[in-house]
């Protein structure tokens, strides 16, 4: 029986998409989904289709741009690219996540009988 996969936390998918686009440059939807799955080492349960709702949300916020282009095997594909605004948001959100995960880590890792200072 395969190891249980983690559900995506609300709001993290947008962040993953931004991060992927920031490191990989322009990509199409399938490419983004594959990349997230690979980096997540298949420990994440990602319904690839949900990527597209995230892409729409990010477009509305002007954090990414979309344009039809030609894929590597010469097919029409819609390519997404992070904007300057998107990079700014990615930075802020990443910091935020690191802070939160630090706090969670500290609390969960606190030895019994001792409160984290």
């Amino acid at each position, binding site marked *: 029986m395969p190891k249980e996969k983690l559900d995506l936390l609300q709001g993290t998918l947008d962040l993953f998409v931004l991060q992927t686009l920031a490191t990989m440059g322009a990509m*199409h*939807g*399938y*490419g983004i*989904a*594959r990349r997230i799955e690979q980096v997540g080492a298949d420990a994440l349960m990602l*319904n*690839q*289709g*949900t990527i*597209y*709702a*995230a892409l*729409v*949300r990010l*477009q*509305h*916020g*002007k954090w990414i741009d979309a344009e039809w282009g030609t*894929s590597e*095997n010469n*097919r*029409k*594909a*819609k390519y997404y690219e992070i904007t300057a605004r998107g990079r700014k948001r990615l930075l802020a959100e990443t910091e935020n996540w690191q802070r939160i995960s630090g706090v969670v880590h500290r609390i969960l890792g606190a030895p019994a009988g001792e409160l984290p200072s």
Partner: protein
Amino acid sequence: MIAIIQRFVCRLRAVFSKPSLDADFSAELAQHLEAATADNIRAGLTPDEARRKAHIALGGVEQIRELHREARGLPSLENLARDIRFGLRMLRKSPGFTVVAIATLALGIGMNTAMFSMLNGLLLRPLSFSQVGQLFRLDRNSPEQPQADHTADNFLDIRAASADVAELAGLHTWASSLNAADGSAEIVGVARVTANFFDVLQVAPLYGRRFRPEEELLRQNNVIALSHEYWLMRFGGRKDVIGTVVRLDKQSVEIVAVMPSAICGAGVACRSLAACARASGSRRPRRISTPSRRISPGGFPMVIVMRCWGCDRCSPPCCAAPTARSPSC
């Protein structure tokens, strides 16, 4: 805030370009599945198996479409539109019910509107006269008959008794028949007023002149002032109406003034004075015929309006006239 508006505009735009966005997304999904299938074939699966795997990884196509639509558009608005369309279809199916429902709504709304317009005019809007706190209407009340009208005698007595603190004007409203020069006749509401009526209200004529004191006398009282509303309606707002002679109750009277809309305007301005009360939609104050001893006692009922100098709004009645009280307080 701007970001929220921007996002809203994006969503709104998406609602109105739905077909093209749907087609766009279908193409994108097809490309996704194709790329995924190709990857799976490269990984060594049979074409059928590869396509099946690609579909599973993507999730249900219809479900994904729905998610996409929700993210890009205004699902609540679209649902509302769908509900409205459904409602209209149902209404068309049962016209009897529709008629009853619409009639009920129309009646309810109409009655409420009418009621509010009336209350707004009568109670909510303040009088538009200057220093309105000095204005009172004098009522006469006795144990037998509360809120009775005054007689002309009564008016003269009160005027004499309160001459040093207040100025009184009297009026008497009546429906009269008016024939204009073109011969057309109509019934209009007319207030017969003392010569100082407009002075007490402190309203100057828009055109023409005020009444003169001697025009209070019998046989010299053949002058009238038109209300603004009636002037516009009947005389088309012509300024040369001043000096025109019309027939009022078979007597020739001269139009000497047009009053501003503050007075007797839309049946609103004179409210607590009951002066030019809402008559037939048209009215003009005319001279009272002789508030003098020549009028037989109780000749006609009069409403008395008083401007009391030095009275502040709602001060206790300051003008010690025997039968006076100030209901405005």
